[in-house]
């Protein structure tokens, strides 16, 4: 626990310019930043947890509506976006790796790739939202849900059709909150790329890149759950 005790003196005397005042050693500083980031991520878990909880409740209450709703969204784009995010996670991990080995050009490159993939994700999401908008599947005044996606099937009963509004509310709330996190991520990425290109992340001081990596992977993980929950698991009317 107090591994830094021994190095207190050393730390106090020749302080690294990167070492903040309240810390004794760079190692302590780095450890602290990591812990802080992880604690922040669990607050994010709880934040999305509220939505997941609502999802769980309503899926059990209105399973048929969830079937109808999730059949109306496109698995293709969903899968594509999942793949895009997974790729961006790889590039992010590689970016952290490049920072660790001190390869500045690679770092900038991988960060930019991550940014690009993030933007692709958002663009696809935008397209999906646009489709929903034209289909009047956005909850609110213009909402109406009539025919199922797949032709040749029985139409959705009127009560189920009106309950799909709950499914779509959750769909938009969940993917919207996720997209918001992506947008914030993209903003931070821009800043990181700029800083990285100026060489602000030497090998012993890239905690910021690392922590951002954690954030980005976390957002990826959220999507890894949103994808099956919203797109995949409610397609078959059989299960309840």
């Amino acid at each position, binding site marked *: 626990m107090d591994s830094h005790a021994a190095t207190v003196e050393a730390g106090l005397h020749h302080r690294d310019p990167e070492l903040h005042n309240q810390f004794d050693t760079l190692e302590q500083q780095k450890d602290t930043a990591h812990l802080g980031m992880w604690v922040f991520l669990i607050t994010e878990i709880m934040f999305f947890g509220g939505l997941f909880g609502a999802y769980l409740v309503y899926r059990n209450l209105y399973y048929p509506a969830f079937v109808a709703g999730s059949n109306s969204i496109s698995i293709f784009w969903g899968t594509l976006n999942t793949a895009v995010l997974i790729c961006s996670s790889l590039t992010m991990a590689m970016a952290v790796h490049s920072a660790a080995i001190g390869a500045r050009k690679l770092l900038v490159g991988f960060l930019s790739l991550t940014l690009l993939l993030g933007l692709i994700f958002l663009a696809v999401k935008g397209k999906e939202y646009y489709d929903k908008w034209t289909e009047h599947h956005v909850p609110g005044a213009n909402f109406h849900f009539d025919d199922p996606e797949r032709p040749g099937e029985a139409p959705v009963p009127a009560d189920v059709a009106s309950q799909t509004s709950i499914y779509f509310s959750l769909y938009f709330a969940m993917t919207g*909150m996720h997209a918001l996190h992506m947008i914030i991520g993209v903003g931070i990425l821009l800043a990181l790329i700029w800083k990285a290109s100026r060489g602000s992340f030497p090998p012993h001081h890239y905690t910021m890149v690392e922590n951002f990596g954690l954030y980005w992977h976390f957002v990826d993980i959220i999507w890894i759950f949103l994808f099956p929950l919203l797109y995949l698991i409610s397609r078959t009317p059989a299960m309840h």
Partner: protein
Amino acid sequence: MSTATQVPAALEMPRDTYLNAGYGVKSWFLTKDHKRIAILYLVSITMFFLFGGLMAVLIRLELLTPAPDLFQSDTYNKLFTMHGITMVFFFLVPSIPATLGNFVLPMMIGARDLAFPKVNLASWYIFMIGACFTFSAYISGGVDTGWTFYTPLSTSYLNTHVVAAALGIMIAGFASIFTGLNFIVTTHRMRAPGMTWFRLPLFVWSMYAVSLVQVLATPVLAITLILVALERGFHIGIFNPQLGGDPVLFQHMFWFYSHPAVYIMILPGFGVISEVIPCFSRKRIFGYSAVAFSSVAIGVFGFLVWAHHMFAAGISTYSALVFSLLSFIIAIPSAIKVFNWTATMYKGSIHFNTPMLYALAFIGLFTIGGLTGLFLACLGIDMHVTATYFVVAHFHYVMVGGMLVAYLAGLHFWWPKMTGRMYPEPPAQLSALITFIGFNITFFPQFVLGYMGMPRRYHTYPPEFQVLNVLSTAGASVLAVGLLLPMFYLLWSLKYGEIAGNNPYRATGLEWQTESPPPMHNFHETPIVTQEAYDYESMNEEEVVIG
């Protein structure tokens, strides 16, 4: 390092303190010093408290008579809503953590600052931005949802500024999250050499438990309020029964935060009391680890009982049973604490300084407040008293009689550390007494009213309830005196108070070993801890100078 400095005959103010490290506006508003941020918080929440108190006074005045004479009912509804929101989210939740905690926690563990000073400053700004949102809703006409924002009333039936108020609370919630995050990481990573977990002062333990709750519960409130805002804005159906939503789900999500939040509102108080009682009994705390673990137990179990606010709300009978059982279990750690504090006084050498008076008041009032929680947790009784003044009395006993009193205890206790000057003892003792008496006159009658069936949030009431209401209002005016007095003598002491010296109470704890007010980075050299907390034995060997 282990001995406090000798007390010289004539004390002098230390030369380099955090207070004179800079004077400009910038030096305050851009400070990263946890002590200055604590002061920023202190000033802001005092303002909010006065505002909330003003609302309370207006509520009590209206309730003097059964008839609606001062306000229209919608005004009255706005009053208690603004009272509740302000007091809970803008006063009591940040009260001890963000002011006293911010100020002393790093010092207690021997750190130069919190782990993330910038985040700390940001959290104050976030808090103030949240306050701006919520207060903008107040100014532009008020909100009348009740502090609980129950749907579908809040989402579909009111035309006040619910969204602004809710978003403000959500934003302020993030301030609370960041404070908690900072404390957790600081406690884990920044302890001075030799400061093991079981040498931590109990205040740190309870702040740690609070921080866990803040970090884990507040995000759920945030998303819930976002959903409320979305539902208002876009008419989506998550909580709206007309669109298939379930309004009771809102209550689940709200209380998932707000029950743990009541422990956010009491645990810091427990921490303060655990510091004050040993100090003024000149004695180590009785059962250190029992008190420490019970804090953590309250923090954790606090997450398991939220639906006891919903017994009459149409939840399933069986889950009501489970939540009731768990609510009784959560009462036990509090009981452990009460008994340990009491036992600490046994064979002590008791000094009646103001913090101690407040602490004693705390024990008594909290015991009553907590035990009346048992009535509410008891299914059979709650079905009668829920949402009556019995509940109002219960939570004022724990929140005002408990936490507010503990906050005052802590404020007086650390006042010399924060300002370098003593508060004047006689008026302070007097105001503690007035507060205690006024408090009981205000809120005890409300238990009786509640059992008789007087509903809360009622603007008018049947005439047979009047006598007790008059009593309550009378008590509130006494209480107001007791609570306003400190504002005057504390401000007075800033200039004229006696110079305190490093450790006026000869208390243990690292915060007392540095100067008062402390220097910029708390300690001139990193302290090394060699003893357990509350080692009053060695403290007492020094000369007795305490007042």
